[in-house]
């Protein structure tokens, strides 16, 4: 067995598709629950949000080397963003489930609902937890001084906005199932605003890093060239942002006249872009150079 020990820049290979899917589903669920509360969406949207976060947690279990010990991950909330995230996800699942359960007929015997004080408190706790679920992945990455591409205060904002955009995307996707036009209208506007904000933030992030140290420049180079470059430019920018922005721009001003197929297309493209965005951010992570490099 031969080994080639060289000082070349190396991209991180620890976190890839499974982590991208986990971050995507968690962010999507957290963001969707926030939209559910803010725009008073139908109860099934809250259930979908809950299901997405649970699915994300299951994917995370699959990624762990020792999933049986996962309960230990709540041990360091004072220093570890993963710990904080696991606590937020657990709290969200518990409070979210209790909050939306009365909307299901089999749980109609429960003594609280959205109108009671207990229901309001549970909904508020779940919403706060959902916000953290959508926010914390950016902090997990930005806490790594080893990877300059991630080690930026912009990353948590990017992840939060991307989660909210994904949530708007899934709301558009679900709109034919019974999201009223009055609620859909602000969501469409929010999606357009978030796409514009994400495009701006991505541009600022890449421009700043392209003038930084070697590892950061290498990350930007990887996002512009090769397989990852195509994934980023076609998948994230074109399909995930420009295409839905164009569809939204062409939608009729009266929401009731919006073709379901247009809403589904816009929502699906946002979701594809959201997943690829996380994958690209993970795969573009390049470690700082060795001291002699």
């Amino acid at each position, binding site marked *: 067995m031969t080994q080639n020990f*060289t000082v070349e820049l190396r991209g991180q290979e620890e976190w890839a598709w499974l982590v991208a899917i986990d971050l995507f589903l968690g962010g999507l669920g957290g963001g969707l629950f926030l939209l559910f509360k803010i725009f008073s969406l139908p109860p099934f949207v809250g259930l979908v949000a809950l299901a997405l976060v649970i699915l994300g947690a299951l994917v995370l279990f699959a990624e762990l*080397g020792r999933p049986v010990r996962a309960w230990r991950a709540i041990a360091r909330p004072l220093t570890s963003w*993963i710990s904080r995230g696991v606590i937020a996800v657990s709290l969200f699942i518990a409070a979210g489930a209790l909050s939306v359960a009365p909307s299901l007929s089999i749980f109609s015997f429960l003594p609280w609902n959205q109108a009671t004080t207990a229901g309001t408190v549970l909904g508020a706790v779940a919403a706060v937890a959902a916000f953290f679920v959508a926010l914390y992945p950016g902090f997990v990455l930005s806490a790594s001084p080893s990877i300059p591409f991630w080690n930026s205060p912009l990353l948590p904002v990017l992840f939060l906005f991307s989660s909210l955009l994904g949530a708007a995307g899934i709301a558009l996707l679900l709109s034919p199932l019974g999201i009223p036009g009055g609620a859909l209208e602000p969501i469409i506007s929010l999606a357009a605003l978030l796409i514009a904000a994400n495009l701006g933030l991505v541009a600022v992030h890449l421009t700043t890093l392209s003038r930084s140290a070697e590892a950061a420049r290498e990350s930007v180079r990887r996002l512009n060239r090769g397989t990852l470059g195509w994934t980023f430019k076609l998948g994230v920018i074109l399909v995930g942002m420009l295409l839905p922005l164009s569809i939204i721009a062409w939608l009729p001003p009266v929401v009731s006249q919006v073709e379901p197929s247009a809403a589904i297309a816009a929502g699906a493209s946002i979701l594809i872009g959201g997943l690829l965005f996380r994958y690209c951010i993970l795969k573009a992570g390049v470690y700082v150079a060795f001291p002699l490099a």
Partner: protein
Amino acid sequence: MVIDLKRCVGCQSCTLACKAENGTPPGIFWMRVLSKEEGTYPQARTVFLPIRCNHCDDPPCVPVCPTGASYKREQDNLVLIDQDKCIGCRACIVACPYQVRFIAEDSKGYYGEKLTPYEEEHYRQWQPRTVQKCTFCAHRIDQGLEPACVQTCPTQALVCGDLNDPESEISRLLRARVNFPPRAELGTQPSLFYLT
């Protein structure tokens, strides 16, 4: 620890000594010597950079660990891993700027699925799918011995000792020679210095 870059000849004795002492699995090197070609013909030369865990004073791998598996040993500030607590989330691997943390996906040996008696004995020291790294040969330190890499180095390029003792050889070398801690700008405060 100090590493004298002028003495290192890139023989990888430290790499092998570490493997022999700690029985790490294939593809995992707690200690390794990187090489880089510098200059152009006829002035070309190869420079060597031994790398390993720097047992930083402010290690970025410890606070990111969600379980407390990565910790600093109180008596000597060694950065160690409690493998019974590690969940294999890899956060510490991506947090380490020195790329000296590893995860063994399985317990395969150098000669396939069946382990040699030597591997069987040494593989008990770590668990598959948990993170492992240089322990500074804590088991040897506890017996008053030097780490295997230090003891093996034929050019005595590696020197370990007490940085707080002004009379120790390591302190004397740091006073006498130009030195740098790797990537000090990251604020990790490595306990390792390269002499140039």
